[in-house]
C-alpha cells in the first residue's frame, strides 16, 4: 500500500525537481537573465539622465523583476503541464500544499539570483550607492518581496496552468495583484539607496507591508492550491 509524505518532504522534492530541471535546461539563466539585463539597459537609454536614473533605480529593478517573474512562472508550469506531469501529481494524491510550497521555493531561488544580478546592474548602470545600514534594509526587502512575488506567481500560475490563453491570462491576472509589492519594494529600496533624500528608517514600514503580503498569499496558497488545480 502506498504511503504518502508530509508537506515538507513533498515541497523539498518538488523544489529540487524544479531547480534540477532549470539547471538542465538553463532557460532562466540563458534567456530570462539576459532579458532582465536588457530591460535595465533599455531603461537607461530611455531615461538618459543620471540623476533621474539614480532616483528611480529601485522602481526599475522591481519592474524588471516583475516582467521576469511572468516568464519564470510560465516556464515553471510549462514543464509540469507539457506531458501531463501536473495532473499525474494530482492523480497521485500528492499534498497540493506541498506542491505549492515546493514550486514557490524554486521560483524564490531563481528570483533572488536574478535580483542580485539586477542590483549589481543598478549600481553599475545607474550609479546608485548602498551604505551598511541600507544594506540590511535592502536584504530584508528583497527576501520579503521575493517571497510575496513567488507565492502570488505560483498561485496564479496554478490557476491558469490548464487554461487556454494562459500566456496572456497570467500577467493580466497577476500584475494587478502584485502592485502592492511593486510599490512597497520600490519605496523600501529607495530608502535603502537614500534616493531623493529618503531615509533608511522610512523603508521599514514598507518592509512590514511586504511581510504581511507574503504571509497572506503564502497561507492563501497553501489552503487553496488544491482547489485551483482540481478539475
Amino acid at each position, binding site marked *: 500500500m*502506498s504511503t504518502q509524505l508530509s508537506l515538507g518532504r513533498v515541497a523539498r*522534492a518538488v523544489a529540487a*525537481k524544479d531547480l534540477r530541471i532549470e539547471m538542465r535546461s538553463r532557460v532562466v539563466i540563458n534567456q530570462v537573465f539576459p532579458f532582465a539585463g536588457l530591460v535595465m539597459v533599455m531603461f537607461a537609454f530611455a531615461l538618459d539622465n543620471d540623476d533621474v536614473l539614480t532616483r528611480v533605480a529601485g522602481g526599475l529593478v522591481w519592474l524588471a523583476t516583475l516582467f521576469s517573474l511572468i516568464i519564470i512562472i510560465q516556464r515553471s508550469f510549462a514543464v509540469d503541464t507539457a506531458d*501531463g*506531469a501536473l495532473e499525474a501529481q494530482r*492523480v*497521485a494524491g500528492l499534498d497540493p500544499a506541498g506542491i505549492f510550497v515546493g514550486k514557490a521555493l524554486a521560483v524564490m531561488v531563481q528570483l533572488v539570483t536574478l535580483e542580485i544580478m539586477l542590483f549589481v546592474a543598478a549600481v553599475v548602470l545607474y550609479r546608485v550607492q548602498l551604505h551598511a545600514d541600507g544594506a540590511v534594509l535592502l536584504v530584508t526587502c528583497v527576501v520579503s518581496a521575493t517571497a510575496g512575488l513567488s507565492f502570488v506567481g505560483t498561485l496564479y500560475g496554478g490557476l491558469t496552468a490548464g487554461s487556454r490563453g494562459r500566456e496572456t491570462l497570467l500577467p493580466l491576472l497577476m500584475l494587478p495583484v502584485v502592485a502592492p509589492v511593486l510599490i512597497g519594494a520600490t519605496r523600501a529600496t529607495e530608502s535603502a539607496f537614500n534616493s531623493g533624500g529618503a531615509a533608511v528608517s522610512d523603508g521599514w514600514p514598507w518592509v512590514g507591508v511586504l511581510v504581511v503580503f507574503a504571509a497572506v498569499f503564502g497561507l492563501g496558497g497553501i489552503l487553496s492550491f488544491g482547489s485551483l488545480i482540481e478539475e
Partner: protein
Amino acid sequence: MSIVVDFRKAVVVFNGFPALAEASIEVQRGEIVLLQGPNGAGKTTLLRACAGLLPIVRGEASVLGVDLCVDRQSVRPRVGLLGHANGLFADLTIGENVLFWAQMVGAEVAEVASTLQRFGIDGRLAQQKVMQLSAGQKRRCALACLVVRRAELWLLDEPHAGLDAAARDEIDAIIREACTAGATVLIASHELERARGLATRSVSVVAGRVVS
C-alpha cells in the same frame, strides 16, 4: 478475492452531460479488465472516476474500499492513471523521473534501481533525458513510475497507442507482471485484438453504461 472496483448505478456528469449513466461494474483483485466501446462512450470517464478525479453525483462507487461518494482524495495515492500523456518531466532523465515518484512514497534507491532493471531502462538509458526517448521507452518509464509508486489499481487509457509491435509486447509483459505481483488493471483500448489477448475479462461501455 477482494473487490477493488465496485460501481453500482453510478452517475458522473461531465460538462453538463451524463458521461456515466447508471454504470455498474465490479472488478476483483488481480483481474485485467478491458473496457471496449466507441469514442465518447464513457471509457475514459469511468477510468477518471475510478481515480477519484470526477465526482459521483448519484449511485454508489467504491475503489479499494474507499467510498468515492464521500472521499475522492484518499484513494488517489493507491491508484495510477496513465492516459494519453505519460506524466513525465521531459528535461529530467529516466532515473530522475522514477526517483521523484519513489521519493513520494519513501521508497529506497535500491528499489528504483531494481525497477529500472526490470523494465529494461537501466544503465546508460537511465541517464538519458526523457525528451530524447522513443514513445515506447517513455511508456515503459511511465509504467515504472506506477510501480515505484506502489499503485494497487492501474487505470490505463490506450496504453498501446503510438507504439510499435515490439514496444506493445513489452508493455503487455509489464502489465501481466504487475498483475502477478497483486495489481489490478483496467484498460480502455480500441486495439481490441491485442487487448483481448491481454485481458482476463472484457466489458463494453455504451452510452455511459457498462454492458458485460
